[in-house]
């Protein structure tokens, strides 16, 4: 599919994501201005506060965005998943340029002018309003402009905590190896940044002294800007209304908030569950594509009600047990401990397992006649391994794996985004990766899965994990889905999305038609 065709087919989603993106940036910048400018003014009045407060703002800015989003998840009231946390994080990022430029702008006002203002009998408030702020406006606006451009960029990361926006396309594109998605996400957020930069530049010019002093040009610019502002506010107002509409739905008792992790299979499973629930007349709120273990945190903090998980992951990464290989024991023990520790229920297994798949390029496997992981050990000394962050850190991941098989890579494995390891392997930049056995990309990219001959990896049966208070509503659907999806079927579903660019929603729909 060409990029142009992609745009034609998806313009309404692109429009919706752009609107979400703009909304995140607009609200967070507005908040940052409402708080940051007064703080900046305060700092010009209490100079001793400048170093500590600017220092804090500085530190906030250096916190990596994904880390900041993650830190906000468990915080009550302001945190959690979704737009709220994203807005808070974006606001925190916007503080530094806005506060700093407010301080710089006001301090930069000619002291003779301030002296004259005081001597004329103006109050501090009048001096601020009539003299300092108007004269500092161009500098403050430059700060806002910098903040907005940063926010447009950082807001793409917000997709990782389910805040939506154009980052959704970027993350999805990375996962699904889909350049159209990547391009659309990147291009439209870049366009947003450019437009915002240009528009704020124009406002800045409006307040620049030489233009305040040129009445005709001032009026003309004002006219154009008021027009643009009306358009943007209309656009945002529209999205606010549609936001509120979807919010009000949430208050219905019969609403189930379905979450998913940030990879294709999880999204498809969540989508299948969502559509089955919707057929039963239950309202569904989708909180998909949550990174790392955010879905678990979100479930615990009552931000979502249910999400697809794997028994092995729950057993090792969440319950912190040493990996064991008995499928049933893992399921039973996980179920019991989840009920006791977290008050969460676990559905019957869905029928397939998504185990770790140690992958090499097909031609390498053929040339060296590789079948099992043990086969690869002797020739792997000079291989470059590439593993996802998850595999590198989890207890059943790299460390135990390399020990169990006695791997001895001479080069430190590259730690990268899981979705990117497939591409890196295909293009020969790495030689061995740890993927997922149900991944559609394995056949698409002509990769070969080495057999886990030492049975190192624990079983990863797919299940749903849900909050206990929703057990009644979910029971029937869980029973219908028990043993309903085979490994082959899951691989096909993944391939439909990753290889054929079917939307997860449509892939789930097609599967359900066959299923029922």
């Amino acid at each position, binding site marked *: 599919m060409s990029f142009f065709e992609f745009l034609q087919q998806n313009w309404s989603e692109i429009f919706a994501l752009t609107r979400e993106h703009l909304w995140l940036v607009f609200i967070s910048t507005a908040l940052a201005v409402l708080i940051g400018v007064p703080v900046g003014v305060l700092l010009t009045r209490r100079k001793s506060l400048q170093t500590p407060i600017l220092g804090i703002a500085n530190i906030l800015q250096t916190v990596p965005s994904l880390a900041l989003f993650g830190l906000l998840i468990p915080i009550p009231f302001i945190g959690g998943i979704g737009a709220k946390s994203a807005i808070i994080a974006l606001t925190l990022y916007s503080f530094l340029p806005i506060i700093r430029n407010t301080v710089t702008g006001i301090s930069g006002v000619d002291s003779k002018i301030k002296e004259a203002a005081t001597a*004329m009998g103006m*109050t501090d408030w009048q001096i601020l309003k009539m003299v300092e702020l108007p004269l500092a406006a161009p500098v403050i606006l430059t700060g806002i402009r910098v903040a907005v451009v940063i926010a447009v960029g950082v807001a793409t990361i917000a997709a990782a905590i389910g805040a939506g926006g154009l980052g959704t396309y970027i993350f999805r594109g990375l996962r699904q190896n889909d350049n159209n998605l990547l391009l659309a996400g990147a291009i439209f957020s870049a366009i947003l940044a450019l437009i915002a930069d240009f528009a704020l530049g124009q406002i800045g010019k409006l307040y620049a002294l030489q233009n305040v*002093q040129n009445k005709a040009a001032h009026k003309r610019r004002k006219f154009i800007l008021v027009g643009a502002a009306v358009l943007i506010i209309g656009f945002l107002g529209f999205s606010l209304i549609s936001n509120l509409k979807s919010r009000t739905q949430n208050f219905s008792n019969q609403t189930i908030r379905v979450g998913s992790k940030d990879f294709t299979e999880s999204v498809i499973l969540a989508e299948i569950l969502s559509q089955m629930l919707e057929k039963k007349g239950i309202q569904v709120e989708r909180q998909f594509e949550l990174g790392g273990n955010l879905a678990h945190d979100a479930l615990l903090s009552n931000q979502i009600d249910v999400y697809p998980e794997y028994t092995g992951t729950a057993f090792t990464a969440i319950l912190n047990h040493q990996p064991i290989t008995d499928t049933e024991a893992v399921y039973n023990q996980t179920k019991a401990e989840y009920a006791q520790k977290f008050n969460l229920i676990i559905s019957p297994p869905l029928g397939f397992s998504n185990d770790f798949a140690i992958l090499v390029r097909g031609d390498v496997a053929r040339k060296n006649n590789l079948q099992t992981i043990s086969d690869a050990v002797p020739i792997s000394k000079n291989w470059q391994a590439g593993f996802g962050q998850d595999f590198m850190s989890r207890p059943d991941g790299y460390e135990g794996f390399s020990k169990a098989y006695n791997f001895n890579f001479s080069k430190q494995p590259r730690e990268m985004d899981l979705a990117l390891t497939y591409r890196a392997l295909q293009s020969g930049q790495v030689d061995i990766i740890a993927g997922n056995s149900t991944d559609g990309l394995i056949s698409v990219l002509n990769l070969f899965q080495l057999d886990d001959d030492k049975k190192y990896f624990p079983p990863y049966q797919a299940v749903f994990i849900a909050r206990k208070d929703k057990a009644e509503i979910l029971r029937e659907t869980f029973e219908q889905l028990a043993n309903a999806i085979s490994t082959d079927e899951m691989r096909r579903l993944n391939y439909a999305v990753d290889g054929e660019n079917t939307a997860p929603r449509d892939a789930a729909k097609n599967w359900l038609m066959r299923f029922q």
Partner: protein
Amino acid sequence: MTEKPQTIVEFQRVNFEIGGLKILDELNLQVNKGETLVLLGESGCGKTTTLKLINRLIEPTSGEVLVEGKAMTDWDAIKLRRRIGYVLQEAGLFPHFTIRENVALVPNLENHEKEKTRERVNELLELVGLNPDKFADRFPHELSGGQRQRVGVARALAANPDLLLLDEPFGALDAITRTNLQKEFAKLVTELGKTAVFVTHDLHEAFILGSRIALMDKGRFALVDTPENFRKSDLPLVHDYLQTIEFQK
């Protein structure tokens, strides 16, 4: 008794220090209604500090400054400042205000009637020699230095204050413009019957404008007297000053 001039500003044993450094040392001074007192001295002698004490831009470390017989502490600083005209070097006009808005500043702060303020601004601009039709809607940067200084004087006069404070208002102007403005200002102050305290380092200016000259040196008054008596003084410092004028001639 009626012969006794009314005191507008009075300094009683005023000291001013910054970080232990003595700027003003036991100043005693009276400024009488209708006179133009020139504070004369070199940079750093404390003349601008003395001026700023009068409209409470700064407060004395010890001693008392009285305006119209009332101690500083009994004045509301904002009200006090709006009763005193203030002109500073390079005018200190607001660059984002038109000439009209600049001149109308204090009347607008005091919520005077718009139409009256408008007339008042026109009247004042005429008074300082600027055609209102031509200048009122311009911005400060479109005017020459001399014209801006005229606007500065007009702004100071806008609320019709009895007392004017001027901090080297003509210091940055070229000689010809300066001489013209000095002469016009002297005439203006006499005609309007204003009391003025005028800071300068230029003896020539002091002679043109001052009804009395207060010569300052290291935070003290070396001499406070009329220009005539100033010329006759045998203080070495006065002698030095007079020489600068002789030299110029």
